[in-house]
């Protein structure tokens, strides 16, 4: 039974976390039925699981909690702040119970009694109300029997179907939105590879669709292609089914049969749950999978290069297929270990809520970019530091409502948690509109602690960075909340451990912004492969505007380092000069125009090879300070192409120029 126990515990924690998220959302939308449903379902599941595993205490406790939500569900009780407070406290207690269900300490026993009493009281109050409305199972939906018909469609695109940019798969997609489809591709007309003209369409499709719509609607789907295909629609059979939620859509299968008609269901049909079925996988297995997939990609790229040198039509076809499948496998595998930042936000939300009310401050926690994805391992390393930073903001940053009002600020403080992707990094920003930090004060403190000399000259940025030094704390009192600056140096260490970087900027009375820059440990780079003399480099496609051939080197104005393209004056950087110290004087070079902040810069390289997709590998600790190179990619022939961070290359170049001008 023990092997199941750990599954139970894992699932219990997940359920509790889900409920916490739902409750916090419910706070903002107290009447949202879907949320209430979700909470109730989760409680019910937890109760059932606990009972099954013999955890009576947990099961009973959950039962009380469930009763309240039963009443809420039936409309007899409203979601009030009191209910929420008790519920959240109960969830915390449940979490502790799941870990140790014996209530070993007196403290937890007391808590248990208290909470149980509160829960029972809430339930009783409601039940004592006069009208006891019939518990209406609001899951009930009136059944309707709608008529569905099955049609057989023959879709035969003409040979020149592609000539107006059309794609038959687009039409098949549109069909799927009308009903359940079974699609069979008819490939008899496809000639052998030797006589195949790749601009012509040889495939036809036979589709069986189960739909309520009229044939005219089906025909309408093909309205843009009617003149380019042969379309036949015939009715097959009549099927009656009870109304359910949106029709399920099947992936195209080759020659599948549609099953027999479903029996009419008269009983209440539960609203179709949004079940995203999932499988638990230990993360080591994911890591292994990813590294195997990376090796496969490299190997397959090698195969591609070899095949180019030994052209053989069947080999080419197989290699191409292999490439397609490898790409899909790679995308699939990598997406498995990426998790949206959203998943870690609930504890933050909770912290802001609880802590701000403890301190009598009013703070809104706003998030932006919650769907940004991060590698799971990195996210785990981020939780602690972010919690600490939030505590700091709440405790030392945001002022209390009266002070804020006097300063002309809104009574509610805002903490913004923003996540976004840029290049091969993910950025997390925590921004508050509190009282900010005074560089003078920090400086003074540092001098006092002997960290810097009185007359040392530091830029504002450098002053703020002093905060990350161990033993530094400007809080007058060591508050219990954020503790003794066991703060920023530890935060910085934890961020460095996940290979990230942290930066602070602040303005007195305006607020403080903390920026964390994180790598995507494994990322797929869509880039442009270029050659600078003999070295290979990759420029991320997201930075590229366009490419040009440089026909005459005279176009490069060396005096003020601009080149004129399309009437625009664009500054240029000669990469071979920049990297190797020698100017490449070969006749034809190529120019890649990249975006840099809000303007364009031209990079002059020897040759643009083409678009390239590869696994980005980090260069490792030894090259951590090389900011202009974000990593390396392994080419099909085994050579290494360095991936450029064009922004950094341009910045370094500008800095060098600036310094040169100063002398």
């Amino acid at each position: 039974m023990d092997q199941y126990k750990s599954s139970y515990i894992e699932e219990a924690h997940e359920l509790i976390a889900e409920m916490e998220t739902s409750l916090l959302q419910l706070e903002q939308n107290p009447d949202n039925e879907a949320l209430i449903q979700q909470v109730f379902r989760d409680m019910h599941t937890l109760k059932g699981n606990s009972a099954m595993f013999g955890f009576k205490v947990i099961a009973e406790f959950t039962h009380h909690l469930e009763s309240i939500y039963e009443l809420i569900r039936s409309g007899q009780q409203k979601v009030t702040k009191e209910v929420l407070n008790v519920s959240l406290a109960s969830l915390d207690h449940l979490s502790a119970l799941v870990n140790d269900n014996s209530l070993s300490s007196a403290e937890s026993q007391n808590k248990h009694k208290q909470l149980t009493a509160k829960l029972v009281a809430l339930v009783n109050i409601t039940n004592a109300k006069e009208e006891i409305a019939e518990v209406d199972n609001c899951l009930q939906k009136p059944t309707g029997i709608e008529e569905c018909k099955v049609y057989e469609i023959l879709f035969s695109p003409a040979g020149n179907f592609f000539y107006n940019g059309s794609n038959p798969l687009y039409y098949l997609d549109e069909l799927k939105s009308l009903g359940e489809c079974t699609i069979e591709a008819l490939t008899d007309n496809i000639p052998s590879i030797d006589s195949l003209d790749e601009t012509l369409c040889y495939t036809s499709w036979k589709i069986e669709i189960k739909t309520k719509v009229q044939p005219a609607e089906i025909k309408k789907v093909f309205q843009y292609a009617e003149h380019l295909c042969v379309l036949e629609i015939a009715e097959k059979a009549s099927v009656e089914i009870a109304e359910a939620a949106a029709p399920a859509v099947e992936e195209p299968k080759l020659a599948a049969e549609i099953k027999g008609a479903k029996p009419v269901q008269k009983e209440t049909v539960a609203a179709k749950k949004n079940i995203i079925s999932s499988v638990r996988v230990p993360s080591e297995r994911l890591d292994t999978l990813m590294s195997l997939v990376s090796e496969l990609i490299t190997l397959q790229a090698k195969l591609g290069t070899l095949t180019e040198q030994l052209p053989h039509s069947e080999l080419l076809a197989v290699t191409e297929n292999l490439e397609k499948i490898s790409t899909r496998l790679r995308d699939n595998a990598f997406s498995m270990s990426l998790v949206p930042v959203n998943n870690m936000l609930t504890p933050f939300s909770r912290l802001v809520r609880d802590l701000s009310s403890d301190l009598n401050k009013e703070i809104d926690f706003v998030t932006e970019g919650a769907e940004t994805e991060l590698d799971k391992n990195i996210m785990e390393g981020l939780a602690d530091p972010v919690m600490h930073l939030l505590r700091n903001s709440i405790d030392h940053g945001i002022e209390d409502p009266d002070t804020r009002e006097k300063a002309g600020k809104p009574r509610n403080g805002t903490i913004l948690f923003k996540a976004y992707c840029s290049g091969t990094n993910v950025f997390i920003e925590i921004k508050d509109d509190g009282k900010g930090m005074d560089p003078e004060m920090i400086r003074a403190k540092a001098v006092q602690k002997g960290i810097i000399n009185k007359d040392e000259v530091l830029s504002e940025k450098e002053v703020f960075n002093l905060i990350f030094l161990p033993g530094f704390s400007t809080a007058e009192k060591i508050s219990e909340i954020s503790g003794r600056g066991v703060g920023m140096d530890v935060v910085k260490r934890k961020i460095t451990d996940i290979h990230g970087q942290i930066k602070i900027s602040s303005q007195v009375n305006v607020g403080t912004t903390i920026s964390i820059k994180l790598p995507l440990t494994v990322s797929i780079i869509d880039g442009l492969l270029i050659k600078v003399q003999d070295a290979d480099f990759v420029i991320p496609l997201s930075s590229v505007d366009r490419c040009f051939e440089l026909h005459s080197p005279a176009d490069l104005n060396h005096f003020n380092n601009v080149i004129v393209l399309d009437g625009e004056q664009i500054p240029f950087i000669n990469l071979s000069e920049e990297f190797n110290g020698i100017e490449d004087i070969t006749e034809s070079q190529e120019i890649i125009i990249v975006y840099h902040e809000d303007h364009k810069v031209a990079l002059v390289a020897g040759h643009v090879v083409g678009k390239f997709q590869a696994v980005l590998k980090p260069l490792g600790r030894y090259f951590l300070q090389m900011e202009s190179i974000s990593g390396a990619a392994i080419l099909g022939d085994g050579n290494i192409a360095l991936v450029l961070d064009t922004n950094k290359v341009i910045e370094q170049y500008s800095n060098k120029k600036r310094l040169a001008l100063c002398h």
Partner: protein
Amino acid sequence: MGKTVLIVDDSDLVRRVLGFTLKKEGFNTLFAEEGKEALSLLEGRDISLIVSDLNMPVMGGLEMIKEVREMENYRFMPVVLFVSDAGADLNHYIRTSGATIVFDKDAIKEKLASTVKKLIW
């Protein structure tokens, strides 16, 4: 890592609205005021789809599509054409323009995003 859509229309407002709609779906956008400018933007870039108005000064939608279909790299490029003449015969344009999809300008705001996504996933 997104795909790029070229939006061609002589109205600044329309370009902005369509651009915003597509940007929200994760596409990169490029703009041109009419056909000739659009053609010049195709050089040296990797554009996945063109959305264009029919009536434009200098070079209109039909002429532009004809030119595009002659270009080696863009022969099979999906083109979404929209027509703002009330009562225009959409069928006629569907058959003769060489465009992949033809919309009424009214429908374009709601249908554009989903259509583009399906054409260039």
